């Protein structure tokens, strides 16, 4: 239990909002398939940084929001993201100690799990099986992870989010 007053909820909320906006921001046709899973990346960061505040519940809510704004099946992303939040929360102590490149590799695995679960749901609904470009976003996400980590860490320190 942490007895210190919780601060900076607004910062967490704003970072998620920004992630949602980036998720549905219109992009040129050729970059659309490279769009990383912004909200998953933000979710992973906050679960690592303050696991006592952001966890499975928030992950589920984030997933529902993504489902609504991108028009996928309600629950498709929610399932995947609550699982990711769970894994990240379980491993947060270990993950925090990793050097950045090793963290990126772990993040890649987490992002791939999200895509895999999405694919599974799509398969269960007998939707069209997407092409191999479906697997590009986790790799882009992995490459972006160090920057996202540093930016969000600086933000967290500046606003002293605990």
């Amino acid at each position, binding site marked *: 239990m942490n007895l210190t007053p919780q601060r900076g909820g607004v910062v967490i909320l704003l970072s998620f909002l920004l992630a949602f906006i980036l998720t*549905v921001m219109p992009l040129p046709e050729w970059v659309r398939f490279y769009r990383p899973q912004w909200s998953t990346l933000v979710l992973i960061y906050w679960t690592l940084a303050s696991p006592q505040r952001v966890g499975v519940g928030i992950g589920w809510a984030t997933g529902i*929001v993504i489902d609504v704004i991108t028009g996928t099946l309600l*629950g498709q992303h929610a399932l995947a993201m609550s699982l990711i939040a769970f894994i990240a929360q379980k491993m947060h102590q270990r993950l925090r100690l990793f050097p950045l490149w090793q963290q990126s590799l772990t993040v890649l695995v987490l992002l791939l799990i999200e895509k895999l679960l999405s694919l599974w749901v799509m398969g269960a609904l007998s939707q*069209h099986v*997407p092409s191999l470009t479906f697997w590009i976003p986790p790799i882009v996400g992995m490459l972006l992870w160090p920057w996202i980590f540093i930016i969000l860490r600086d933000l967290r320190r500046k606003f002293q989010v605990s």
Partner: protein
Amino acid sequence: MVVDHRQNHLEGIRSILAVALSPLNVIINLPRSTGEWISETFATRSMLQQQNQALKKENLLLQVRQQKLDSLRSENMRLRNLLDSAVKIKDRVLIAEVIAVDLDPYRHQVLINKGSSSGIFIGQPALDASAVMGQVTHVNPFSSTVLLITDASHGLPVQVNRNGVRTVALGTGQIDRLELPHLPNNADIEVGDLLVTSGLGGRFPPGYPVAEVTSVTRNPGQPFASILAQPKAKLDQARETLLVWTLDSIQGYEPPDDATKAPENNAEEPQP
């Protein structure tokens, strides 16, 4: 949760959430709408004059065509009366704008800015200026989602305009391609044929143009010819879409027997 959604119990929850999240759409649409506002505000006089002239010319042309259409329509009605068949020509349409929001890249969907508050319903056909675009799949109070005809899960009953051969146009997941499966090798269909809606599904009003056949491959070893068509609607560039209510809807329309000839399709235009 998945099962629940398949039975559409969660449609209400989805629309509530969508309303709560609609400010997000406004924010995302902001760059484009301000850009448009700026270009409209600072349009020069000569540009406006040019535009005005062009529109006047187009209007004249359309009026001439409309005259011809009026006479054709009355002729068509007369002939239909002679044949004792159903007359269904009047449609009501509503113009909705496409919101610049990227949805799931693996599904062909667009978000439009009209919803159940404007009377939009699930399954309503959406057209653009030239052809059929798709149908409404989710309705929220102030916005709705349109599934395009090229989505891999979409099928649309069509017929060839030239001779009335009926088939189904399936989406392929590629924005410029439809597939016509299960047509035998000797079916009378050629490259360049116009496909129009046949109205058989009961969802789309009959007679709207859909696509043009681009390739017909007849392989004697295969039971069916492989036929591809290109949608006439500008699915990836449309800014506006027309939503159609068929006034004299399905009850006046009797699906023809499979043995009888399909009804000749009639020139039919949306009435604002």
